[in-house]
Every structure is written in C-alpha cells, then in structure tokens.
C-alpha cells in the first residue's frame, strides 16, 4: 500500500509552549487505511493531525524537527461546524463547491465534484438552503462534503461527531470505510472509541505527546472509559454500553 504520509522521529512544539506537544513520533498512514488516534486530553492527538496534514507549523507556527513526507492533498474536519464555513456562500451548494472552485478548475468539474460529495453525505436536498439556517448536524455534513469535494488523498478528522446526535455520528463514521475503499487515507482523532473501533483498521494511542501503542483496534480498549471498565472487572463490550450495564444490574 502506498504511504500517503510518513512521520519519522517528529517532534513539535507550539510557539510559546513550555513543553513539546509531540515527541519523537513515528507514524505512517497508507492509502485505504483508517487510523484511529486515541489519548487523554493533552496527549497530542489533535496536534498529530495538524502535523500529519502539513498544517503545522505552516499555519499555526511552532518548530518541527524530524522527517515528514506527505504525498497528495489533505483535508481536515474539526468538531465545530460554524468555524469551518467560509462565510462567502449563501447556499450549501456554493459552500461545497468552494473548495474545487478555489483550485481554479473549470465550472463543470467543480459542479460535478460538489454534486458527488453532496450525494455521498446525503445532503443533495439541502443544496439551495442557506448554511446559516441549518442545524449543527446538517452543517457538519456540509463541512465534510465541502472537504470531500476537493478529493483529498488524506482526510484528517478531529472529533468530527462531537456536536452530532447519535444517528448523525453513526452515519458519519459509517461513511469512512467507503472513503478508504476509494483509496483515501483517513486519520481520526476522537474520544468516541466505540465508533472509532467499529470502522478503524488500525489504532494509535498517544500519551504525553508520544506514541505508546500502534496496532490493531483492540488497543482502544486500553484507553479512557474502556480501560476503567476493564479494570473494574466489567464484562465486554469495552467501553460498556447502557444495555450491557442494565443487563448486569438486572442480574
């Protein structure tokens, strides 16, 4: 599999920060992989997304040492939909088409890319709506479509379903395997380990800016609520869901 991004011994420090946000991180993501990044707050998962996609230090400043090889275009999706709108577009269709139009493509390919992206996210019916009047969930789907319209080789998602309802979150994560099959490399940093584990092909766990584990997705069971449940002796699944807890209480 072709590596879309390769990091070797990468250390990164934000401007004015007392310590490094990433320390000696080595990681490769190939086309078709879905890598879930897990870790506690301050572990460096969001920073790793920015470094892997080349946005750090270029746009956020800071110092980076080590080797980074990036092949192809990158897209990034954050958790708050509102901050990701351009503000220039009065319809969803225009918002999604903004990216390909900015690349200077001709009108027809731009509209075709935008149309495909909206279809993938199931938002074609919203094409003429004003983004300012959409719900948070609908808006996040518009944002993802806007990024997909540029057909990135590497898609980074930073807790993308934080403001979505459970159905919306399920739909968003369910989309990722189809994108990976199409050849996209996907990096998703999220505390939603259950959903991440259901779609990821690989898991990377960070702590204090270092990679502490890199392997199969069952590694995610060793972090966060899953780790607490396992240590407490709860039976699987990890992390525990409400039905399984109720069954345990009811026994």
């Amino acid at each position, binding site marked *: 599999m072709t590596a879309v991004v390769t990091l070797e011994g990468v250390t990164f420090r*934000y*401007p*004015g*920060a007392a310590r490094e946000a990433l320390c000696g991180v080595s990681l490769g993501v190939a086309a078709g992989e879905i890598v879930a990044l897990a870790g506690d707050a301050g572990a460096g998962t969001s920073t790793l997304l920015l470094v892997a996609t080349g946005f750090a230090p270029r*746009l*956020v*400043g800071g110092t980076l040492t080590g080797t980074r090889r990036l092949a192809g275009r990158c897209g990034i999706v954050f958790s708050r939909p509102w901050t990701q709108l351009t*503000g220039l577009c009065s319809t969803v269709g225009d918002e999604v088409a903004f990216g390909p139009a900015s690349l200077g493509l001709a009108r027809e390919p731009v509209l075709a890319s935008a149309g495909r992206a909206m279809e993938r996210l199931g938002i074609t019916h919203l094409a003429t709506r004003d983004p300012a009047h959409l719900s948070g969930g609908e808006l996040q789907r518009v944002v993802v479509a806007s990024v997909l319209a540029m057909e990135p080789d590497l898609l980074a998602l930073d807790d993308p379903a934080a403001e979505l309802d459970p159905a919306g979150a399920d739909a968003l994560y369910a989309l990722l395997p189809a994108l990976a099959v199409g050849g996209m490399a996907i990096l998703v940093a999220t505390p939603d380990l259950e959903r991440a584990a259901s779609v990821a092909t690989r898991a990377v766990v960070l702590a204090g800016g270092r990679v502490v584990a890199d392997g199969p997705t069952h590694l995610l069971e060793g972090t966060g609520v899953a780790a607490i449940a396992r240590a407490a002796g709860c039976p699987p699944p990890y992390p525990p869901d409400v039905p399984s807890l109720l069954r345990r209480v009811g026994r």
Partner: protein
Amino acid sequence: MTLRDLVLIRLGVAVNLVIGQVVAALLLPIYLDSVGTILVACLVGPRAAIAAGLVSQILSAVISGNFSWLPFAVVQIVIALYAWAAARLGLFRRLATAVPAGLGLGLVAASCSAPISYFVFGGVTAGGVTMVTTVLRALGAPLGVAVASASYATDLLDKAIACALVSAVLRSLPQTLAARFPALTR
C-alpha cells in the same frame, strides 16, 4: 496579506460592529466602534488595522443604511496608524499607559473628524454629537467651536475606554495564544 491576517481583520471588523450591542445594553454614552481596529493594530500591524477600519466603515453603512458617513473613513486610517504606533511603544501593556494613550487617540481622532463634520456635513451627522453641537450653538458658540467641542468630548471618553479595553484583552491572552501573534509586544 496572509489568511491569518484576513481572519483577524474580519474579527476586528466584527468586534467593531458588535461591541455597540454590549455598550447599548449598559446604556453607556460611547460607541467603542474602534476597539476592533485598535486590537488588529496590536495583533497584526498598521495595514491590517487600516483595512479593518475601512471595512468597518463600509459595513456599518451597509447595516445602518447611512452611506453619507463614508467620508469619515479617513478617521479610521488615522486611528489605525496611531494605535499601531502606541502598540509599538508598548503603551497597551498597562492600564496606566493605555488610558492616556486613549485620550491622545481621542484628541487625534476628533481633530480629524471635526473638520470633516464641519466642512463636509455642516456639523450635522450623528444624533448624539449633533445634539451637543446644537445646544452649544444655541448658547451662542460659533458653529465651528460647537462642532469641535462636541467631537472632542465624545471622542476623548470613547477612545480612552476603547484603549483600556484592548489593554485588558491583551493582558488576558493566555501565553500560548499570545505567542501566535508576532506583532504583539509584551
């Protein structure tokens, strides 16, 4: 200009246009419609601050409908340059230097807006300031003196508070956030 500069200018313009809502809720006799311009001057630089001031003037006209105030855009340029100079001298580091800097800005801004108000608008522009002008005129002051006095009084208070507020913002910035703005003198 970088994308970062543009986003910060947009933030400055938005602050200029929205802070009036906060001021109105407090029933204070000021506008604070230059806070964003002064902030951008400190965080980015003079060109960005001028852009923030000019765009604020245009959008303020678009929102209120009163496009006759566009000639006051010149005052925005002066405010931007003064604020940048004050930032370079480190006057926003402490409240004790920010307030006098604001009074100086008020003097300079009024010295620019009063002639525009007098020569271009005959002294009649915004309600509040012109009311003061009218009262002074009724008391026998020459029109030029009435216009100038009204402009100075409102501008001194307005700009002193604006600079104090910007100083408070800059001093409240977390270290990591402040480090993102190379133009910021700490």
